[in-house]
């Protein structure tokens, strides 16, 4: 079981060059759970994720791991606790699956970079968890989008961190692969207790797979908590500006969003919902 950590953002303000994107966020990542950050495009989900992973330096406030500012933790040591798969990593031309996954071992290797038995085991285990062992000699360019994404996650797993961040791990994937990836990540969380924090676009999959939701709007944390408590039509209206009705997902029992547009709406439901949002 992966060890528990207190991982927090305190009054964090961050952004790029002259543009502030995160405006004072306080949050604590639930340990050994799956958390999902949701919000409209450009609300700062990815920026917050990157700031917490030390890719962006907060302009004020701080990120702390077990009470210590992450700036003060030696880079390689932090890399053994916190891993992250960014949104668009680069695939070196002609790289094989095992070579790519193996590169995740860097934080565990000495300056001379020798490969120990532990390294091989970690790589084998990561490939096993993500179900890519059979592909180990294949070139990445030959793989499907879903396989490729599993290989990248295996690379991040080879780093053997207690906390794993994923920035939109399912974007651009077919629905089949989205579910496959999220199932594998849930396996990982249940079997090893890995704390997972990710940004997802699909609201309903977020509600189904998350233990904890962070809802962001314009760089601020609007709501957080269990999906069944936070996911209300009022919240969705607030963060996405979208009318919707929330039903119970018939498969998982988690909240499921049914959007209401201007067309294809039964007249009575539309007026019903409209009436609701006016009164609320």
């Amino acid at each position, binding site marked *: 079981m992966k060890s528990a950590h207190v991982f927090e953002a305190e009054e964090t303000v961050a952004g790029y060059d002259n543009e502030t994107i995160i405006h004072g966020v306080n949050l604590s990542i639930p340990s050994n759970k799956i958390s999902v950050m949701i919000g409209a495009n450009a609300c700062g989900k990815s920026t917050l994720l*990157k700031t917490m*992973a*030390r*890719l962006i330096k907060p302009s004020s406030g701080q990120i702390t791991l077990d009470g210590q500012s992450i700036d003060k933790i*030696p*880079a*390689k*040591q*932090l*890399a053994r606790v*916190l*891993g*992250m*798969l*960014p949104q*668009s*990593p*680069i*695939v*070196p*031309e*002609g*790289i*094989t699956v*095992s*070579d*790519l996954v*193996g*590169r*995740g071992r*860097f*934080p565990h*290797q000495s*300056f*001379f*970079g020798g*490969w120990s*038995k532990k390294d*091989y085991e970690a*790589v*084998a285990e990561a*490939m096993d968890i993500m179900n890519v062992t059979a592909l*180990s*000699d294949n070139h990445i360019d030959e793989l499907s989008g879903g396989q490729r994404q599993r290989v990248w996650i295996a*690379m991040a797993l080879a*780093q053997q961190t207690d906390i794993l961040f994923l920035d939109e791990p399912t974007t651009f994937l077919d629905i089949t692969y989205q579910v496959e990836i999220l199932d594998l990540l849930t396996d990982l969380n249940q079997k090893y207790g890995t704390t997972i924090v990710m940004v997802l676009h699909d609201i309903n999959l977020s509600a189904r797979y998350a233990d904890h939701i962070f809802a962001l709007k314009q760089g601020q944390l609007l709501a957080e908590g269990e999906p069944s408590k936070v996911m209300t039509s009022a919240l969705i209206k607030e963060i996405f500006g979208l009318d919707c009705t929330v039903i119970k997902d018939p498969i998982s029992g988690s909240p499921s969003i049914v959007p209401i547009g201007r067309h294809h709406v039964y007249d009575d439901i539309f007026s019903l919902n409209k009436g609701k949002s006016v009164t609320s």
Partner: protein
Amino acid sequence: MSSLSDRQEHQKLSTIPKNFKVVLFIGLVLLGISVVASLAFGSRWVSVHELMEGLFYQNTDSYGGNVVRKRVPRTVFSLFCGAALGVSGALMQAVTRNPIADPSILGVNMGASLFVVCGITFLQITTANQYIWLALVGAMITAVFVFSIGSMGRGGATPLKLVLAGAATSAALSSLVTAIMLPRSYVMDQFRFWQVGSVGSANWDGIMLFIPFLIVGILIGFLTAPALNALALGDEVASVMGIRTGILRLMAAVAAVLLCGATTALAGPIGFVGLLSAHVIRLILGPNLRYIIPLSALSGAIILTISDCIGRLLGGTGELEVGVVTAFTGAPILILLAMKLRVRSL
């Protein structure tokens, strides 16, 4: 399961490229051939007997034996320069994440050249000891200059912008070198190879001077290879793994500049060797720098030494500078690679 199957599993997962041993073997054979060719061929070909005599007998009166002995430093020097350029090319390609980076394409060789020519012309510098430092300063300044020009604007230092900045800088520096040398026949006569690159004037003093740079540069290359492998997956991935990308790039760039700067100081600007040797190895072995860097040293040594032999053979009684040979063979290959690159990025 038994430990045997464990071991097999580990071997299956090994990150050693599949054909590494074959490539290493072929490389060593080619290296042997190029060494023999470099000792035996030239304006006067020597027999096997003369070759042995020149190499293994202390005192020989035979003309052929002496010819061979004269060619020993030249051969050693071209092997070393080739190795340096190969590693330098591999490092530059890794640092800029650009498959067609090379000390000559990025203008670094020409910067070193200009400084040496200026030193000779204006400061009356005459010893290799002095101009190796000049060359390094020139290489360093040019590298910084090209990199800052290439990083301007959106998207930072993209491969294309870097190559354009390098090509423009190289052209400008090269015309400066010509402008300084042309009216001064003494500079022209003695150091005309600073325009083209040559290993013909090699001597043991120069080689001794060169060795420390070669060792330091290659050592840094070896030590940074695992981190550069992570950097190849993107700056974000590398940072998450605890790598300070700025410092890593700087270290690798310094090693690359040391290697090509020292080479340029002693042999003049030799183009395309770095590009070719690293590229060929990557094409065969894949993108793992822990193997690309040592084997680029090997392929660089082979390419430069063979090119030097070809130059001697083509030149008739005189000889063609090795820089001319590499430019002639390298330029068309660069064009091919650039076309392939463009097709892929479209």
